[in-house]
């Protein structure tokens, strides 16, 4: 992540109110950039765009589409980044990392665009069903979430390529377990166990 000096954690020190804030901006420089975007800083938005737009485009291109018109990914970039600009002031670095927050927006926009392609209508609001932020989470849950994010980021580095591959297909391409099995010519059980193993390794499975 190449960041200009102006957007390092130091520039937001003035707004730091707690130790958790400080920790968060140290590990997540894009949170600080979002903070600037919230103040209508177009240069900061340009930085964010340069970093995330190509990835959102890749996310859009990996989508399994009902029809193959090439505009989907570009429209997804536009819609996502406009929402990032409009909602930046409601981004809360205490609740989630910047990439988590941007993912939830891109995911919701993908659902929205897919629904429009399939000409689905209805009264349900996508952001009501998939909230961009966890409003119910209190300080304890927020702290837990930031610790989880750090742990996942660390353990993701050592994840075996075969496990990473199925995670990418499930979360980025939006494929079901059986679609993944077909694509990789693997038995469904193998795909399911690979995903379970990856989740266990990342300690993402909570016992109920």
């Amino acid at each position, binding site marked *: 992540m190449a960041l200009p000096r102006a957007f390092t954690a130091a520039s937001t020190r003035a707004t730091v109110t707690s130790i958790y804030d400080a920790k968060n901006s140290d590990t997540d420089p894009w949170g600080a950039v979002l903070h600037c975007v919230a103040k209508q800083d177009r240069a900061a938005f340009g930085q964010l765009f340069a970093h995330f737009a190509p990835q959102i485009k*890749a996310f859009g291109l990996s989508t399994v589409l009902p029809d193959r018109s090439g505009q989907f990914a570009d429209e997804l970039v536009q819609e996502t980044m406009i929402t990032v600009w409009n909602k930046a002031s409601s981004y809360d670095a205490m609740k989630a990392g910047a990439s988590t927050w941007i993912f939830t927006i891109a995911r919701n926009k993908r659902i929205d665009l897919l629904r429009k392609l399939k000409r689905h209508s*209805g009264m349900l609001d996508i952001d009501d069903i998939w909230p961009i932020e966890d409003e119910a989470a209190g300080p304890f849950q927020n702290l837990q979430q930031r610790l989880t994010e750090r742990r996942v980021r660390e353990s993701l580095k050592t994840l075996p390529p075969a496990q990473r591959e199925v995670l990418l297909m499930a979360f980025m391409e939006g494929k079901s377990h059986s679609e993944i099995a077909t694509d990789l010519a693997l038995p469904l059980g193998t795909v399911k166990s690979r995903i379970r193993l990856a989740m266990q390794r990342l300690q993402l499975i909570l016992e109920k």
Partner: protein
Amino acid sequence: MNYHPGHDLLEQYAAGTLPMPVALCVSVHMGFCAQCSAEVNALQALSGMLLEELPGVPVADAALHHVFARIDRVDSNTQIADARITRADDVLPAATGAERSSTAAAKVPKALRKLVPGGFSKLNWLRVLPSLRIATLDAGCDDYSVMLHRVSPGGSVAMHDHRGLEFTLVLSGSFSDEKGVYTDGDFLLREPQQPHRPFAAQHEECLCLAVQQAPVRFTGFFWRLLNPFLR
């Protein structure tokens, strides 16, 4: 609360691939369940990191200018729209005190507020059995029916079966069937060919969100519901 969506469902919810009516049930459950919320939040964090690691695909040079142009165009209209939203929220009517049931008092979860704008008691409830009233919600999805079931205290629903998956989320009160007792926030998934006979608790009304896959036609549905011996 003891019944949660499985890991697979939470995974598909986080990935955004769950059909909307099913995602609706998961979302409402998360409002009751800090555990599942934490799991989804973690899966979303994982997705954010995977997104950051995707090999980027260059966007057109003009793309950023396009975004700014659209931001500038929208800017002047935004304030009007914002004011309108605030006003719409203000007029949300509260449940009337006259109706003394847990349904009237039950808070409408955020995920349902567009479908239940005036509170649960204001819906068009249809009595299909002496102890069961149903309100059909328009989720705009042909593959699933989205309904609210309201069972009188101590009432039972005839033994019924369904062709597709059936998701049930208890919004208030409680009910039981052959397999257990379900209370606020419990999330149940029934596979086809699992006929069951739910009973509401004796002391209070039970309100559930019921989402069924591949529903039969309305007349057929009611007919089957009213025919306990029909499978």
